């Protein structure tokens, strides 16, 4: 399993030190709908196990971060991490994408939105649900 380097742990601990409220992490995994094999460092990557290991390490860095792990038998797009009950990450947040999860935790841990008043007013005018998906890569 991937272990965070000490400098990474220190950096993340600093970011999570700014959390103003508790943040839940829910990791769900099960049989993958479309299994993908990735070899890295001479071994096949177990996405769910790697994700769980990373999230556990993140949770260890702040008393405000609480991890729950659920395994399902339902075929689907796994692993799925839900931050603060609202923010989703599909896949293993490795490489640069570790930052995405850390940022999600930091944002979910804010007491107030970081968006401008103008943006908040525009979003308040939404009359229908909107689903955003952002495709990212670890490199």
């Amino acid at each position, binding site marked *: 399993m991937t272990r965070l380097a000490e400098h990474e742990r220190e950096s993340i601990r600093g970011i999570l030190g700014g959390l103003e409220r508790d943040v839940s992490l829910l990791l769900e995994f099960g049989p993958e709908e*479309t299994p*993908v094999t*990735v070899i890295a460092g001479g071994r096949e990557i177990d*996405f769910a196990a790697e994700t769980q290991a990373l999230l556990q390490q993140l949770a260890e860095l702040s008393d405000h971060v609480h991890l729950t792990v659920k395994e399902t038998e339902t075929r689907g*797009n796994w692993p799925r991490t839900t931050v*603060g009950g*609202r*923010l*989703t*990450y*599909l*896949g*293993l*947040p490795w490489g640069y*994408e570790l930052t*995405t999860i850390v*940022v*999600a935790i930091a*944002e*979910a841990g*804010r007491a107030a*939105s*970081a*968006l*401008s008043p*103008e*943006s*908040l007013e*525009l*979003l*308040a*005018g*939404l*009359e*229908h*649900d*909107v*689903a*955003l*998906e*952002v*495709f*990212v*890569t*670890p490199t």
Partner: protein
Amino acid sequence: MLLAYRCALASLRVSAAAVEATEFPLAAERHGVVSVPAIVVDGRPAWVGNISEELFVARLLTAARAAQ
């Protein structure tokens, strides 16, 4: 991704998911993803690249209206 997450936290009408493209290549292919970050709104490719908050919210609202 930051702005998508901020919008989702600001409005219960907005959901935001990051999708690791190399792990879900079929989904990426379905949406024609060739570079990242690629933003899909209500299942439709919307734009690619990082943009300002003002532009992000404006595009989100425009794409949401177009998807209705």
